[in-house]
């Protein structure tokens, strides 16, 4: 199998349900050159090392013109400037620190912790909402509405506007996909339009919050005066857009992948039902086994990097295939087995280094609560389609629908 074919196959929607055999193939060459200026890294230690390598940039402006392709253009034309996810230090560090102030330690250590009760109630309400049905779509009825509700409350975005930003968020998330399908020009136009509309929408909310700040994160981002000063309006916009999109487009996959994995491993589901403490290591293993972000396609080299016998030249585009690294047998014995008892699980599910997932503590808590509640309350749950239909996106990979049947609800 040629290299070119391999990457093509991974992106190919036909392999979305089970890309893992392809990742095994990919790992045979830890750093694989694809075309002139694209390098794909698929083994654990190499990915880990590049995530901590200061010669790697997350800023698309550092791509050489050839490698940049359409990616750069899209960002530059964008009505929203890049958020910290797509920036390097010191800008990244400053914006991330400022975004962290209203979210977590050291300034707000209890925000997520104190949401536990509220999160549990939302989960229970959603399950109550299954009513008398004996079949539901876990995605539409549960794992999508849950994180959306949470991120709306956290940011201070009206839940009833969900219908409006949902489609923008979907389009923007699809823009991350290396091969979203369809006409690339059309895709770019759609992304641009979605970003514009989302920007305008958030802009209106920011105006409201500056006048009458609440205790939500958006208000805090607008009004904060810390050691790093104040965020500019554009910075608030791009940060809020990032948190809004990342806050649910990834968690929905984590919860859905988790439900799917539990239903495929009934013994583990049974254990979780009997001991909810299992949810904690189980979610970590899930982040290894079925990470919601499969690969990071947006890194660039600032210098020639020698790694695993290959030299990645300066200005090249680097893809870090987190999901392949998570199944690297050199790091995790018997990697294709889902094993919540796995010791020393330092997975790449949330990345590593300075760009490690901002919302990780919230995503962990959401997934733990959601999976525990499903295990407790669904009587005799089973999959109706296996594999289920997947979303197009190869980066943010997860089922589009997950239809399950069950015998009834426990209280």
């Amino acid at each position, binding site marked *: 199998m040629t290299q070119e074919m391999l990457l093509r196959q991974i992106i190919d929607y036909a392999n979305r349900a089970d890309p893992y055999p392809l990742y095994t193939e990919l790992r045979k060459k830890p750093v694989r050159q694809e075309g002139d200026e694209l390098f794909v890294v698929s083994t654990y230690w190499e990915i880990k090392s590049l995530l901590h390598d200061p010669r790697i940039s997350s800023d698309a402006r550092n791509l050489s013109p050839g490698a940049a392709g359409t990616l750069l253009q899209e960002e530059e034309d964008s009505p929203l400037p890049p958020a910290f996810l797509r920036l390097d230090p010191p800008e990244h560090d400053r914006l991330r620190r400022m975004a962290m102030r209203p979210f*977590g330690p050291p300034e707000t250590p209890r925000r997520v*912790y104190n949401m536990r009760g509220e999160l549990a109630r939302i989960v229970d309400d959603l399950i109550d909402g299954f009513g008398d049905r004996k079949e539901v779509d876990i995605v539409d009825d549960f794992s999508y509405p849950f994180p959306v509700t949470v991120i709306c409350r956290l940011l201070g975005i009206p839940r009833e506007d969900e219908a409006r930003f949902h489609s923008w968020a979907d389009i923007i998330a699809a823009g991350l996909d290396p091969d979203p399908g369809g006409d690339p020009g059309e895709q770019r136009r759609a992304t641009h339009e979605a970003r514009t509309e989302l920007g305008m929408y958030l802009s209106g909310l920011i105006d409201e919050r500056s006048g009458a700040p609440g205790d939500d994160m958006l208000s805090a981002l607008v009004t904060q005066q810390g050691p790093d000063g104040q965020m500019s309006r554009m910075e608030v916009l791009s940060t809020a857009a990032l948190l809004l999109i990342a806050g649910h487009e990834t968690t929905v996959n984590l919860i859905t992948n988790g439900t799917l994995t539990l239903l495929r491993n009934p013994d583990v589901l049974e254990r979780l039902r009997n001991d909810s403490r299992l949810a*904690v*290591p189980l979610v970590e293993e899930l982040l290894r086994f079925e990470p919601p972000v499969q690969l990071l396609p947006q890194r660039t080299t600032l210098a020639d990097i020698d790694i695993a016998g290959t030299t990645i030249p300066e200005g090249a585009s680097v893809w870090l295939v987190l999901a392949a690294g998570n199944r690297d047998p050199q790091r995790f014995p018997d990697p294709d087995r889902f094993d919540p*008892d796995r010791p*020393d699980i*330092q997975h790449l599910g949330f990345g590593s280094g300075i760009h490690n997932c901002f919302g*990780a*503590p919230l995503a962990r808590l959401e997934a733990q609560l959601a999976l525990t509640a499903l295990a407790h309350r669904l009587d005799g749950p089973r999959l109706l389609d296996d594999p289920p239909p997947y979303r197009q996106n190869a980066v943010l990979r997860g089922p589009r629908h997950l239809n399950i049947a069950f015998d009834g609800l426990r209280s």
Partner: protein
Amino acid sequence: MRLVVDLNRCQGYAQCAFLAPDVFAMHGEESLLYNPHAEEAQREQVLRAATACPVQAILVEDTDEAPATMGEGLSGVR
């Protein structure tokens, strides 16, 4: 309950300070200060923190009723 954090390993991801804020606290951006003798009532939160630690730097003393998943009587050690 006794615990110790290998602060050579710690990289300030602060997951413990999110998950068990009564035991772990960030002091500045990335310095971790923790209570090496947490209240027994905090056990569940501390184990959450130890399990979620991305660099597995938190070592917690076992008791008999701790989940078997923690392995070898100590969680988080290699």
